[in-house]
């Protein structure tokens, strides 16, 4: 205690002055960014590596935290997987591509650039995927899809994302052809996403074989 008072007397003014100077510099830097335009917000100017890491890590932590309160995604059925594939075709494929399918040219001009999602299920749990799809990602081009789509459509999409790594490029292309030929646009419909009547699917079929016919095998001609 006895040593403290002289120390304050000796270093106190210096510390105060230093703190004041640091504060002035911080305010000046803040003003330069906010009003001086020194920070480059253009998407052709990548973040510094630590900034990129910090932004990405913040997103990952936020999604993981929020997933605890997100509704649980129900188990997939063939019908819902088809509905999810239709949603994916309508809303996701241009930015995220698919097995053997490139993203639209503009996707590589986005910062952050949207990832391919074939291994999304190894990065995220279904509930975390639901957080990402339903609520989007701030300061990226990822929209909060639950703002314009019903909750079931979000679940369908997550089911399809979980299923996607089981499709090779040819089977994915056949699935795309099938959902493109469907009459109902799930975007505009608020009720059940698609009519299931014309689909030769049985709930008991294994998902991996029921959704898209394997091109190497003859088509099932049974009614």
């Amino acid at each position, binding site marked *: 205690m006895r040593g403290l008072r002289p120390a304050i007397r000796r270093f106190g003014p210096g510390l105060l002055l230093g703190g004041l100077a640091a504060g002035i510099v911080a305010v000046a830097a803040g003003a330069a960014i906010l009003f001086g335009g020194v920070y480059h917000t253009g998407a052709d100017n*990548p973040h510094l*590596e630590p900034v*990129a*890491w910090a932004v*990405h890590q913040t997103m990952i932590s936020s999604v993981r935290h929020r997933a605890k309160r997100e509704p649980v995604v129900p188990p997939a059925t063939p019908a819902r997987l088809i509905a999810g594939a239709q949603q994916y075709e309508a809303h996701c494929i241009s930015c995220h*591509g*698919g*097995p*053997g*399918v*490139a*993203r639209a*040219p503009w*996707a*590589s*001009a986005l910062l952050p*650039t*949207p*990832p*391919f*999602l*074939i*291994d999304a299920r*190894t990065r995220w749990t279904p509930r975390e995927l639901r957080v990402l799809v339903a609520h989007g990602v701030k300061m990226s081009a990822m929209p909060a899809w639950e703002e314009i789509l019903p909750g079931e459509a979000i679940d369908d999409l997550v089911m399809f994302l979980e299923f996607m*790594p089981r499709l*090779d*490029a*040819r089977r994915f292309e056949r699935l795309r052809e099938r959902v493109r030929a469907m009459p109902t646009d799930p975007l505009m419909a608020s009720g059940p996403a698609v009519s299931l009547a014309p689909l030769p699917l049985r709930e008991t079929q294994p998902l991996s074989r029921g959704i898209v016919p394997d091109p190497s095998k003859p088509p099932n001609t049974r009614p």
Partner: protein
Amino acid sequence: MQSRHGRSAGPDLIAAVLLAGFATLVAACGSRGELTPARGDPRAGAVAITRRACGSCHAIAGIPGADGRVGPPLARFASRKLIAGRIPNSLEGLRRYLDDPQSVDPGNAMPDQGLTDREIRDIAAWLESRG
């Protein structure tokens, strides 16, 4: 001070002129090298790899966040003998594969991303620089 030593000003001037000339020559050679068609720029390659989201399917040591588990890791790609296990690994082979992966290995998940020739050369240069 220096101007009073008349004898040392001459050689200094000559040295300066020679140095400037040499620097110009080096700069000229450098820029000529960059324009050589076969040569890509590794740093531009790293940017292209990031922008094209290669890392969402490939683990690529040296590209932050590139930890994909869909295709093969690209570590030491340059020392690999074959691309996609099918065609010889060369700039020509890489170009052919990136231009149309389905024609090399039908059904595989790798898409034709419409890479420009410049991007392909830069990416090849980056992979080369990683051994």
